[in-house]
């Protein structure tokens, strides 16, 4: 066991080190807090504008060029976009740190952070990618009906499937890695050994 009083005691060594003291004033910290909130609002706004643009372009196709069953792809894309925008709004990705940051022990907090990341990885495909799938499939089917099935169309279809499967597989792989860490932290929280 180390000698607690020796000058080479790690606690003395650590606490006696020179560190650069960065101290924000109250005014500064308030300014930064509002800047952060503004940045988050702007980011959300950009996402809504992008969604609105997709909706307007698809609606324009419906109104000006398409009739009957040919309207199916843009209608599905509009519905998918509305669903994704609703999910973005509901999930409020604007988060920095949860409000109970000072109430939770740091092991539990760490576990909850990892669980949040894992759930985001596992869940993103079904609320961010899947809603667009019906619209894309319908677009390919319509193109096949209108111009016949050719190698290019098949290639595009295969590419969509590969991208989709690849994203899901990668996310699941990342989630499984996080699962292992989460289990270790759970053991630390409960194990008295």
């Amino acid at each position, binding site marked *: 066991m180390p000698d607690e009083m020796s000058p080479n005691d790690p*606690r003395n060594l650590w606490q006696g080190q020179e560190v650069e003291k960065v101290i924000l004033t109250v005014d500064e910290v308030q300014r930064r807090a509002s800047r952060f909130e503004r940045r988050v609002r702007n980011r959300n706004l950009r996402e809504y504008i992008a969604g609105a643009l997709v909706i307007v372009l698809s609606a324009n196709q419906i109104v000006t060029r398409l009739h009957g069953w040919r309207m199916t792809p843009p209608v599905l894309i509009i519905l998918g976009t509305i669903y994704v925008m609703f999910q973005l709004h509901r999930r409020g990705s604007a988060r920095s740190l949860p409000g109970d940051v000072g109430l939770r022990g740091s092991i539990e907090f760490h576990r909850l952070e990892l669980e949040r990341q894992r759930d985001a990885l596992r869940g993103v495909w079904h609320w961010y990618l899947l809603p667009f799938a019906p619209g894309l499939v319908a677009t390919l089917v319509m193109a096949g009906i209108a111009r016949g099935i050719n190698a290019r169309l098949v290639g595009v279809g295969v590419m969509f499937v590969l991208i989709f499967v690849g994203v899901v597989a990668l996310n699941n792989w990342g989630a499984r890695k996080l699962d292992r860490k989460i289990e270790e932290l759970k053991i630390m929280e409960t194990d008295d050994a």
Partner: protein
Amino acid sequence: MSLQDELFQRAVEEYGAALGRLARGYEADPDKRRDLQQEIQLALWRSFEGFHGRCSLRTWVYRVAHNTAISWATQQKRSRPQMLVSLEELDAMPVPPDVDRRLALDRLTHLVQRLEPRDRQVILAYLEGMDAAAIGELTGLSPGNAATKVHRIKNLLARYLNEGTAHAG
């Protein structure tokens, strides 16, 4: 000045240096370390809105600081992956021989920065002078687990620092 502002000012005055050391434990790059310190202070100011004296100021400040630093570390790890190890793995590794007494602090800092966040918060709390009970309160570890960790940390530090300096001497 609001109570939130007052608490924030008191916290940075009393614990500013400790927060600087904590940031050093989580971030090796000096510029990013400055960012992390600012991030911690921002989180502290925000957190004081819900403080309501629910624990000691020290425990609150350390919890918020560690939790913010953990979020930081996990984000940084995604963008800049590096090999982190647990206390047990580090304990099983041979001590590098080429250490000078003057480099003891660098060695200590390097050791802290190599640890997984879950072990890093324990060693940082120990180095800041907390006992096993306080570490348990800060981290949420059970008292027995916290005491075991502290015991292991003491042995690991003694081995790393004393073997290194003995070799240099």
